[in-house]
């Protein structure tokens, strides 16, 4: 299913020096709540310094994955390691190296932003005060306002600034921008780019596809509790269909059936088709027709995502 070979684990894993371990590694990870299966058979290997996009529709199991990674919920089967450390067994050691931004910013309503930063950073054992001040400026947050009086987006900024200012080796972000306005989205992307330059690893769960497309080195697509596809954007595109659109001088002509070409509903005078595999046969068929314009483009992440969502939801996993 995935393009990257699943990580193999051996008995030596437990003793493997933490210095070499990948940032995130799961093997056969699964979780059931009562009779409902939230996540099954998840194999992930995210290397240090990578920015990994974790995509999936609502309820696909993204937050469950994060809760298992952080050791907030107990896995039903499989393994999950952060820098070689099992966060369920030793949460304190694992959490020293990461910072987490939850999708819903759960904070203490009576504390102000500044007090929240102080509290979180002291529990963590310190952060970078200069960078924190810079982030407060860039995200335009009033740190003296009580959390109670902040909107959802502003509360999210508090968590985000606290996480970024900690400069952790790993940032685990669960839909961190769902409440941010477009200006703040720009500030967020800049901060993630900085984190990447500093060699930090980022695990970004999101359903904002443009954000993932802009930021991530590698993408995993989750559907119905299973990872249905994984790879770099280039790899995902390579396997998916190209979209070819032709415009004609006159009515749309009839095309003979071709292998690997699926004709879609298109307005009169145009032809839109999905091509998987070689494009040659389609070009030959079009050569004799009155084509006035021809475009071919790689699929957007949205199209890849929708492809899996439509065909892979609840199924037993992609390819």
């Amino acid at each position: 299913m995935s393009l990257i070979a699943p990580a193999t684990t051996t008995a030596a894993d437990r003793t493997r020096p933490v210095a070499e371990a990948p940032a995130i590694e799961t093997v056969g990870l699964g979780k059931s709540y009562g009779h409902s299966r939230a996540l099954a058979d998840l194999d992930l290997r995210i290397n240090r310094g990578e920015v990994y996009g974790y995509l999936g529709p609502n309820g696909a199991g993204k937050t469950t994955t994060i809760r298992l990674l952080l050791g907030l919920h107990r896995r039903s089967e499989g393994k999950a390691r952060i820098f070689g450390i099992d966060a369920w067994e030793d949460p304190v050691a694992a959490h020293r190296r990461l910072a987490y931004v939850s999708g819903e910013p759960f904070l203490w309503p009576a504390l102000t932003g500044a007090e929240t930063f102080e509290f979180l950073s002291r529990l963590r054992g310190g952060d970078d005060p200069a960078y924190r001040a810079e982030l407060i400026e860039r995200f335009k947050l009033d740190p003296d306002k009580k959390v109670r009086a902040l909107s959802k987006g502003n509360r999210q900024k508090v968590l985000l600034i606290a996480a970024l200012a900690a400069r952790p080796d790993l940032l685990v972000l669960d839909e961190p921008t769902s409440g941010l306005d477009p200006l703040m989205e720009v500030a967020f992307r800049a901060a993630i780019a900085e984190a990447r330059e500093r060699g930090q690893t980022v695990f970004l769960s999101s359903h904002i596809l443009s954000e993932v497309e802009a930021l991530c080195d590698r993408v995993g697509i989750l559907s119905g509790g299973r990872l249905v596809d994984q790879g770099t954007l280039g790899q995902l595109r390579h396997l998916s269909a190209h979209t070819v659109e032709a415009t004609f001088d006159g009515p749309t002509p009839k095309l003979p059936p071709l292998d690997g070409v699926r004709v879609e509903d298109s307005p009169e005078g145009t032809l839109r088709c999905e091509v998987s595999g070689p494009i040659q046969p389609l070009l030959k068929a079009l050569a004799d027709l009155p084509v006035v314009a021809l475009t071919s483009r790689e699929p957007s992440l949205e199209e890849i995502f929708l492809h899996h969502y439509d065909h892979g939801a609840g199924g037993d996993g992609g390819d």
Partner: protein
Amino acid sequence: MAATRALARRAFADGRTRTLSFAAFFAVMALIQVVGYERSYPTHAGRVEFARVWGDDVVVRIFYGVPHDLLSTGGYVAWRIGGTLAIFAAVWGVFAAVRALRAEEDAGRAELLLAAPIARGTLFGGAILGVVGGAAVLWAASWAGLLAGGLAAGGSAYLALALAAVALAFVAVGAVVSQLAPTRRLALGAGMAAMLVALILRIVADTAGSLAWMRWATPLGWAEELRPFTGPRPAVLLLFAAWTVALLALAAAIARRRDVGTGVLSTPDTEAPRLGLLGSSGGQALRGEYGTLLGWAAGIGLFAMVVGLLADTFEPRALSHSIRESIHRVGGASLTTPTGALGFYFLIFVFAIGLFACGQVSAARHEEAASRLETLFALPLSRRRWLLERLGLAVAAALGLALLAAVLAWAAALASGTHVSLPRLLEAGLNCLPSAVLFLGIATLAFALVPRGTALVAYGLISVLFCWYLFGAILGAPAWTLDLSPYQHVGLVPAQGLKVPEALAMLAGGCLAALIGLRAFAHRDLLGD
């Protein structure tokens, strides 16, 4: 009209666990008082003796008010539950109204509902109607308890109505403070403060003969003046009606005029950072619980002063055999000396501090229910450490409250010319801790194993075991069943000595339960609301 009904049903359903718990408590207390009196004092002579000893006693009036007829079951029961259950009815009223009004605004649900074609008045009226339904349940439950004991239907309904009237009067108080305070916590604090003022007015009126007129200044006094079973004065219900309608109208008027989600009084949204106590999760918990602690300290401190001032009002009397026996049943202390009286009344602190401990575990559960633990536990902070710090805070605060009670009772007794030994009273304070630690441990275990049932298990268990200790003997329960209650093994210090082996056993039991709880909590999924 359909909208009002739907809103009322929602408000009723939201409060049903609390309402049903109170209703069960009211029904059982009503039944116990009827049965207990008739079993303990079957003869006229016994009742006359009882009335002679207790009829003029000032300290018992703190709890029950002024008795008007201790020779009939109805008169006795009206005195006993009319006084104490009225306090519980008032607490229920404040909580129910704040839950239905201010908590809904706090959670943002009121905004959602008002965006629908629903007028502000409808929202307010629907919520109040649902709470009134809860008060009706309390009324029916009390009535049923009295009927089950065999009291007359009419008189019982009227006595139950006295309780329901108090509940509604404080629903109205809760409705007003919900308009004034900007948060649920502040509204509850203001409502409970109002309740405390009403209670103190009633206590002063009942204990200082020259100030009896003050009974007319508080709904808790009006409830006494309804005089169920002892020359009823239904006209006093008009006072209740006027109070309740006036306050509800005021609250409705404010609700129509103010911005949704805000209070008439507001706390500043912006302030300079105060960084104290933010170095650890325990310190931050102390910041969060600061208001609650102050409230408890005020309540316990006030009560300790009252108990200390009145410690000397017991006079040696020729007690009949049956009275001595009934005193013996509740612990064997002699009530006729100041230390004897204090030993008996410190039981209230033993129970109250146990309740405080349960409340601290409930507060911990509240942090989890609000999902804030997801934020905390993603930090390098272990669950064990977090819970241990919270439990440490609870024990330290419980110790502080217990010593406060001891010192203030001593000082107040001294001020009124009664000399009681301070070390003995400090021992009485320490005596509050073992059972509190036991219930803290049990509540921790409940928090770990049945998180959503934490409050129900903790408060339910402590209340049942305390009531069983108080009333089990009167009901003639076999001795071994009485021994099941930890309170049976608490010494009545300073009248008796500290029961050291029992105290150590309770401390050990509490620590063991807490340790199992700590372990279980470290190994379970975090559970939201």
